[in-house]
């Protein structure tokens, strides 16, 4: 057991740090939940991609560096420490890309991945439906066979960044007669500007159109945009929510940087006599370190050839609760400035509030932890 990085890893860190120091934009970009911000972030992603920093863990042929999991963690630490912008392509990179690596054809990979890496095509995830959230397998949108492809109909919702995105990926019911709800589903990619698609942006708590609902009326999708085998969509979708995602969805770098910022703010604005706030600032530092070390332990297991399954639910519950606590502390610390909609912690707070809801609610994650990690009996839901 050790915490020592190799000379090679240190060199990788130094290279990333130097690149970022020279190129991270001065001052924050406009919010990526606005049209203007979306454009600015695309530009940033293109700049990252030009020097192969946008998707370091991908193979070189698709624009990556073939980085292993430790290098990826190192890069993310440097990325957030440098104050670099949030990633507008994150849904594609974190959710669609791993699915494509595992289940797509070479042709699909060659067609989809490079433009995802550069931010030229931004992807949205179209899984949830108005009646199908936690019980995703009950989804009703359909894919109906047509010559050369499929016709998609129905409604998807809460699709992050779909207000300004280009394409989407989702699961659709292709066999309404299948005996179980999670059978007879097909995983497809489609164009958000195709005929038959209506995108209606939805304002989140702060009014920004951070997600959208999608109305689909016989939208044609060619066969080449089916991922994996038709009818096997559920298994394909689930296979990418487990293993790596627990590590990839939120890297510790983000929280280390945020906790460091909070501690600096505390030194500037904090009242040393107010030990209640001081303790919460300390907890933010401790939580970031705990998450970093927990992730390193998982990465070590991963590197040793073990798989990370239901353990990723521990991750999800931890970082989502942690993120809210950190931001609440920051807002309290800022006093009346904490209330300002354009304050330095405001957008992060709104974003953090959604953590326990998306990517499978924390209630669902706790069920998974209890049943799969602690072996408790399944109960009525």
């Amino acid at each position: 057991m050790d915490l020592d990085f190799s000379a090679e890893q240190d060199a990788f860190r130094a290279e990333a740090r130097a690149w970022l120091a020279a190129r991270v934009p001065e001052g924050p970009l406009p919010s990526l939940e606005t049209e203007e911000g979306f454009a600015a972030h695309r530009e940033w992603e293109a700049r990252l991609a030009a020097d192969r920093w946008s998707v370091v863990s991908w193979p070189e042929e698709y624009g990556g560096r073939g980085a292993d999991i430790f290098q990826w963690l190192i890069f993310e630490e440097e990325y957030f420490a440098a104050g670099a912008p949030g990633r507008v392509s994150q849904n594609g990179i974190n959710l669609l890309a791993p699915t494509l690596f595992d289940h797509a054809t070479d042709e699909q990979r060659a067609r989809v991945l490079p433009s995802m890496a550069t931010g030229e095509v931004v992807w949205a995830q179209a899984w949830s439906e108005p009646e199908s959230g936690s019980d995703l397998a009950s989804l009703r949108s359909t894919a109906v066979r047509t010559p050369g492809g499929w016709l998609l109909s129905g409604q998807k919702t809460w699709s992050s960044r779909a207000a300004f995105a280009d394409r989407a990926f989702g699961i659709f019911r292709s066999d309404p007669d299948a005996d179980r709800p999670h059978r007879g589903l097909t995983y497809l990619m489609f164009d958000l500007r195709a005929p038959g698609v209506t995108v209606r942006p939805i304002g989140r708590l702060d009014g920004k159109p951070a997600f959208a609902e999608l109305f689909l009326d016989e939208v044609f999708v060619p066969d080449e945009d089916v991922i994996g085998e038709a009818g096997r969509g559920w298994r394909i979708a689930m296979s990418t929510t487990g293993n790596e995602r627990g590590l990839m969805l939120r890297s510790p770098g983000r929280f280390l940087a945020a906790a460091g910022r909070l501690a600096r703010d505390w030194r500037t604005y904090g009242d040393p006599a107010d030990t209640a706030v001081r303790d919460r600032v300390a907890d933010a530092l401790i939580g970031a370190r705990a998450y970093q070390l927990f992730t390193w332990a998982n990465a070590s297991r991963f590197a040793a050839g073990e798989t990370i399954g239901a353990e990723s639910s521990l991750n999800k519950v931890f970082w989502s609760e942690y993120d809210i606590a950190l931001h609440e502390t920051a807002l309290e610390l800022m006093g009346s400035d904490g209330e300002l909609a354009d304050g330095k912690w405001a957008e992060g707070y709104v974003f953090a509030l959604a953590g326990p809801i998306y990517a499978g609610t924390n209630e669902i994650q706790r069920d998974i932890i209890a049943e799969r990690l602690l072996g408790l009996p399944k109960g009525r839901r």
Partner: protein
Amino acid sequence: MRFLLTREQSDFARSLDAMLTSADTPAVVRAWESGDHGPGREVWRRVAEAGVFALAVPEEHEGVGLLPVELVVAFRELGRHAVPGPYVETVAAAVLLAGSPGLAKEWLPRIAAGRAMVTLAEEGGYALDADAAEAVFVLGARPAVLPPGGALRVSSDAARRLFAVTPAAGAGEALPVPVASVVAARESAMLLTAAQALGVGDALLARTVSYVKQRTQFGTPIGSFQAVKHRLADTLVGLEFARPLVYGAALSRAGADVAAAKVTAGEAAYAAGRTALQLHGAVGYTQELDLSLWLRKTGPLRDAWGRPGDCRGRVLEG
């Protein structure tokens, strides 16, 4: 970078676990509580034979240490089995005594071999198990050694026998140890208490999980109720994120890391105790059930050798 226990370290934990399981530690705890040290000394001897104390003693004094990760592995097992006795204090005393060549020569070989059970306390605090110990080492501006004994104060955990350290000014023999050794001893005590607390938390969770699988109400195991499941899931989250802090602190030995490990493991174990008590219902509130042997430790271990507030202050100092 490989932040995972090695095969040897996991095997070491397993063999200690097997040894302590066969030692019937609940009976040992109950004897210790009543002042009967016999069974506890027998466990002490076996723990020493397994090499635990040697991990805290450098080779030149007949040990194999200092090996903080292995010590953490061992103290987690001691916590998991609720083993009574001044284990943390003896190991921390070894760290203190290593700072003086004369004292090291006198004490460390005996500590390494398990022949010396000693205790350690802050000036003005309580010495744990001073009635069983051969000497009481006192930390403070003027580190000293006192003869064992004093008046017993009853702890909320009856297996922790407390004795007030109230030397008349200047009493006891002053110890020629540098300040750095005092600091290192405190940090060792803090780290190993954290490891012990983690083990206590793990034991409380494991016992509660097996209880809720077999206790039936409303015609179904209570472990199938979501309110029960979710509390246990949160307990596991708490322990699983305290664990890497404890091992990380053993590796880095940085003061802030040790303090972070202490507060987090202490609070995770305390929360595990609250959940264990609640989910066992009234039976959890009794001293007959062995669960109580672990439950009573969570408060004292959370606060011993670094209270939560003090630890958080240390973390912010960096």
